[in-house]
């Protein structure tokens, strides 16, 4: 029994547009199967695209930018800034005497601006009650599907610099 269909003696148009009703049922099912298989190929190509992107596309490098002076904000205080472009709003929180963390202010659910809740010590999105950990930006509760992108910070003397974005 051959796996592949041998070429028919009938021309293609006769095969696909049969005059018999019984044949028509086969043709529609065969075409639907082809469509589903092509959709499956599309999904596979999508997965391959993610694979190629993760292997060969390097994360963008951003230049360092001064964002604050050390001690400029109190403990559990907040400073808003933009990084790496003026359209990317970020939030920096001083969590202890010598510890600062910064995240993108854009909620990963529907891009509302998150704010720092000192009472609960977490970042909160007011739109749909999505909560993020202040330690690593991971989702604590709510609809956000991903953690907040983290801004890497470096200290040079008395100045704090934003040096990159993790998890974009």
């Amino acid at each position, binding site marked *: *029994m*051959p*796996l*592949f*269909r*041998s070429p*028919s003696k009938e021309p293609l148009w006769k095969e696909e547009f049969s005059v018999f009703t*019984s*044949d028509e*049922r*086969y043709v529609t*099912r*065969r075409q*639907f*199967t*082809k469509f*589903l*298989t092509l*959709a*499956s*190929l599309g*999904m*596979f190509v*999508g*997965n*391959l695209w*993610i*694979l190629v*992107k*993760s292997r060969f596309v390097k994360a963008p490098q951003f230049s360092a930018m001064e964002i604050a002076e050390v001690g400029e904000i109190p403990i559990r205080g907040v400073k808003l800034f933009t990084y790496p472009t003026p359209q990317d709003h970020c939030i920096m929180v001083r969590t202890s005497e010598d510890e600062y963390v910064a995240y993108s202010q854009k909620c990963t659910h529907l891009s509302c601006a998150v704010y720092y809740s000192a009472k609960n010590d977490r970042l909160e999105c007011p739109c749909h009650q999505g909560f993020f950990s202040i330690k690593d930006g991971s989702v604590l509760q709510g609809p956000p*599907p*991903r*953690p907040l992108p983290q801004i890497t910070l470096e200290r040079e003397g008395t100045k704090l610099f934003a040096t990159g974005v*993790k*998890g974009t």
Partner: protein
Amino acid sequence: MANTESHKQKRGLVAIDGAIALIVILLVVQIWLLSATLETYLAGHTSTVVPAAIFSGLLFSACLALNLFVDRVDKESRHN
């Protein structure tokens, strides 16, 4: 004779319908797999990308095999 042919055609249609149902199930799994992989990739985790691509390839191979099966049943039921 006509009855035998009609019976054969009905059997062929049932086989094709079964194959289509199976392809639909595989496709739903593939759609879920793609969205889950995209979510984890965008979250910065790349460890799932390779197994997901392999599994998606296997699912596509299964769909392709079922497509060939449908083609063969179609040929047997209609032309033999």
